[in-house]
């Protein structure tokens, strides 16, 4: 059993545990399932993880205090550049007001990174020139809004989770030379 494959699946599930959520009152969302698929063609390996949103929600609510405090996570300054959550919040509020736009495009020899807003979805696309490797992340605007509804250097994870569980469809797709990762939410198990 490949440790990397299982680790990747576990990590993906944990990441989703941090991005799917609460909102007990929303009855339709209770039937939603979070799915993670990891496939590695050259090792003939397939891993799939399917979790009811209610299970992920339960894990979040009981998460130890040192990981998640009352649904908020404290990030503080990030790295040497001193980019803080409050700075990001200000930038986000500015970006949000502009409507559909291409916020950043970085092209270099190794890869092209594109951050844009299309409708009510934030897109992050990373592509390698070979065309064989790509990353696609799609996060609803409401989720980012909810995440930044915390105070100071805190992200409001619980509010973000509540919004994300309303989404149906792909959230993350990663493709490289020999593996693909897909994370999505739907109502099937």
């Amino acid at each position, binding site marked *: *059993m*490949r440790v990397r*494959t*299982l680790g990747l*699946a576990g990590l993906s599930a944990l990441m989703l545990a941090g991005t799917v959520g609460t909102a007990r009152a929303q009855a339709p969302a209770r*039937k939603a*399932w979070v799915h993670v698929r990891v496939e590695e063609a050259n*090792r*003939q*390996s*397939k*891993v*799939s*993880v*399917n*979790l*009811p949103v*209610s*299970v992920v*929600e*339960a*894990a979040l*609510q*009981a*998460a*130890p205090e*040192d990981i998640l405090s009352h649904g908020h996570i404290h990030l503080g300054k990030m790295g040497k550049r001193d980019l803080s959550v409050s700075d990001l919040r200000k930038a986000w509020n500015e970006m949000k007001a502009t409507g559909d736009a291409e916020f950043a495009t970085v092209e270099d020899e190794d890869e092209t990174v594109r951050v844009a807003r299309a409708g009510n979805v934030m897109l992050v696309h990373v592509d390698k020139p070979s065309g064989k490797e790509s990353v696609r992340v799609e996060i609803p605007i409401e989720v980012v809004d909810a995440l930044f509804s915390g105070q100071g250097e805190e992200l409001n994870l619980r509010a973000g989770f509540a919004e994300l569980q309303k989404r149906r469809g792909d959230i993350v797709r990663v493709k490289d030379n020999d593996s693909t990762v897909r994370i999505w939410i739907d109502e099937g*198990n």
Partner: protein
Amino acid sequence: MLKMILIGAVAVPTIAAGSVAATGVVVVDVREARNGQHIVVPVPLALAQVAAAFVPEEKMHMRLPREAQQYMPVAKQVLAALAEAEDGELVRVEEHNEKVSIRKEGDLLKIQVDDNGEHVKVQVPISLALSVLPESGNQFSASQAVWALQHARLTEIVNVQGRDGEQVSVTVY
């Protein structure tokens, strides 16, 4: 007098069998492929409980590491939520010559591993897992675990089939 002896001879085994049936029996079934041996060991749960009572207290508890302790509430909440969730396949891993599947069916978590001709099936009632996890503190009680098997009545909890045809199963009746 003979009548009384006859009544006693019938009543005592009947009551004993009834008590064992009421409290449950774990049956370990081993089939050897090479020499065709078949061994069946029935262990009444009540007997296992009594035996557990004679084990020294300090040997009956398994201390949990500190890291594991803090995740006990998470484990309990997740299991409780899982018990109420729809049935479905939770995890599936497929590799060359190896498959792992974890399914939730009713109150059962069904784990199946097929590895190069070796097959392992484990069925754990969620209610059993919930009753074994400690409410608080840092210790598992072995006697509590034995008693928790009550939740697994009429369930084959383990079935292992080796490459050489050997088969071991543990069933709670």
